[in-house]
């Protein structure tokens, strides 16, 4: 089982980003790192210049580096970002099919979880066009994942699932951070940078529910499949995606690595993550429950 570190979804300060990836390069047992801006094109200029340096450092540390394309593309400037990606010389993760127009014929690419891959027809089409590695949408149940993993791996593509971190549930034209601050998206003043893991959205009965991150809506709970790696491996999945948060991601990666390698039990792995958790709320319901918010290892939290 491989481990992929997904793209950073939040708006962190550039020096934090640099430190974060330096530690990942040096210490985290991660096979593949996806770098770049998926959520909001306005954030990219803050750290764009750092990307080549970070990418090189990760590559030197033996990680496969993939550059992420933007999740929702509407502006001319955003389309230009996509053509820049192709020229950077790294593999590209497609997060919106707009990217397909910019890839050279027969250029290999990977597919991110925001692209709707729900069935074998779509899988076949993408693989025929050069997809070598596909992260499935987070809302799929384990039975569907097994069907797609079997089909995809036979056709020569790696199949990845969302294994750790707040779930990306929706993307919008509207910026909710700006709306909450009484501003519009165009004059947001980057208020989203105050929330390193997004801002929690609770119900009127104080239930923890969602989190906003600019134009993105996430789950408040962190998806956490560390107790389910055996079932996921059994379904034929080849890679797990861990999504960066402000907590110690090296510890998260090490725990997943140990669980995947069978060096610790599911219970031990869950306890190791819970012990150092910033947020005690986990979910694994999209794969294993009735609703996405469900958590089947309730003895842990």
């Amino acid at each position, binding site marked *: 089982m491989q481990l992929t570190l997904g793209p950073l979804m939040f708006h962190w300060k550039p020096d934090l980003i640099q430190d974060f990836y330096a530690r990942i390069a040096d210490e985290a047992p991660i096979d593949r790192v996806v770098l770049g801006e998926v959520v909001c094109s306005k954030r990219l200029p803050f750290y764009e210049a750092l990307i080549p340096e970070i990418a090189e450092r990760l590559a030197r540390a033996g990680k496969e580096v993939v550059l992420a394309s933007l999740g*929702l*593309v*509407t*502006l001319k400037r*955003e*389309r230009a970002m*996509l053509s820049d990606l192709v020229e950077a010389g790294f593999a590209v993760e497609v997060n*919106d*099919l*707009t990217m397909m*127009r*910019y890839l050279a014929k027969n250029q290999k690419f990977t597919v991110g979880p*925001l692209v*709707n891959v*729900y*069935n*074998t*027809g*779509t*899988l076949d*089409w*993408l693989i025929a066009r050069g997809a070598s590695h596909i992260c499935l949408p*987070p*809302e799929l149940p384990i039975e*569907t994942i097994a*069907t*797609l993993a079997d*089909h995809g791996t036979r056709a020569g593509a790696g199949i990845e699932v969302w294994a750790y971190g707040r*779930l990306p*549930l*929706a*993307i*919008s*034209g*509207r*910026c*909710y951070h700006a709306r*909450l601050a009484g501003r*519009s*998206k*165009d004059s947001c003043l980057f208020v989203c940078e105050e929330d390193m893991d997004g*801002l*929690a*959205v*609770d*119900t*009127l*009965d104080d*239930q923890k*529910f*969602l989190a*906003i991150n600019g134009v993105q*809506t996430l*789950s408040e709970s962190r998806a956490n499949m560390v107790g389910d790696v055996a079932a996921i491996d059994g379904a034929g999945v080849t890679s797990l995606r861990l999504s960066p948060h402000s907590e110690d991601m090296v510890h998260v990666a090490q725990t997943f690595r140990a669980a995947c390698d069978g060096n610790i039990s599911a219970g031990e792995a869950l306890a190791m993550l819970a012990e150092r958790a910033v947020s005690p709320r986990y979910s694994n*319901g*999209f794969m294993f429950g*009735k*609703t*996405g*918010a469900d958590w089947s290892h309730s003895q842990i939290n």
Partner: protein
Amino acid sequence: MTMLELVCPAGTPASLRAAVEAGADTVYCGFADETNARNFPGLNFSREEMAAGIEYAHERGTKVLVAINTFPQAGNEALWHRAVADAHTVGADAVILADIGLLAYTAKHHGDLRRHLSVQAAAANPDVINFYAEEFGVKRVVLPRVLSVPEIAAINREIDTETEVFVFGGLCVMEEGRCSLSSYATGQSPNMNGVCSPASHVVYEQSGDELVSKLGEFTIDKVGQDAPAPYPTLCKGCFSAGARTGHVFEDAISLDAASLIPQMAKAGVTALKIEGRQRSRAYVAAVVCSFRQAVKACAAGQSIPPSALAKLSEGQDNTLGAYRKTWR
């Protein structure tokens, strides 16, 4: 000015007839299963009803589009393939599709069946629209509700594909086809099951003077006696974030862009779409009638008559949504 095509919803054969009688150019509907994005209880068409509905519409010069706009379930793709084949057989004027696997299948096996791209495909710029046109022969794209009018005009300058835009009805705040809020709370999603915030998971509770609406376990809204009753659509709920409490994503509000029809025509839009296959024939008749007048007025160069449809709207209030840039 050219007359814009009015594309109207029908959740039942009675609504289809009401839409045709009220002056729809085109009616869209779906089969009674998870192949379409309004898979609601008691709604939609059997194969026989679809055949009869299309015959009724065609006799009166109205087109019928069949929405097969959910994402086929792995291992069960045949259900979606049959829906496309049956729509073809009963004489649908086009199918409305979202999934690239299903688009590829339809282009290959039903090449002469016209293909429209559903809003669920979330095609929001000229590059991706041209991609769908070149790869799958898509002739029309329903634009996602994240674009302003100038952006729509700019898109039309760079594509040959027809565009269809929503002008009335329920308003998705999130980009359609890329939202799992509903399955996070209920296990059922627009993409997989053709439902959002499904009625089967809705609970209303009277708590003192307040009406509490819940979806699954989650409280979505609480309103006092005099406020309009809220259907617990997730993205229209009242929540608290940081120090603020309110409608974090969007108010309980619907789209009414009748006043923008002349601008839509100038922006090169081909067709105007009314949302509401889950609504009654009374809604369909009233809204179609009102928009028929508006489209006629626009084509004649007259001003658009003020609409009196607020009562029919969720929250009993209307917005221009993303068509106005400040909405973002």
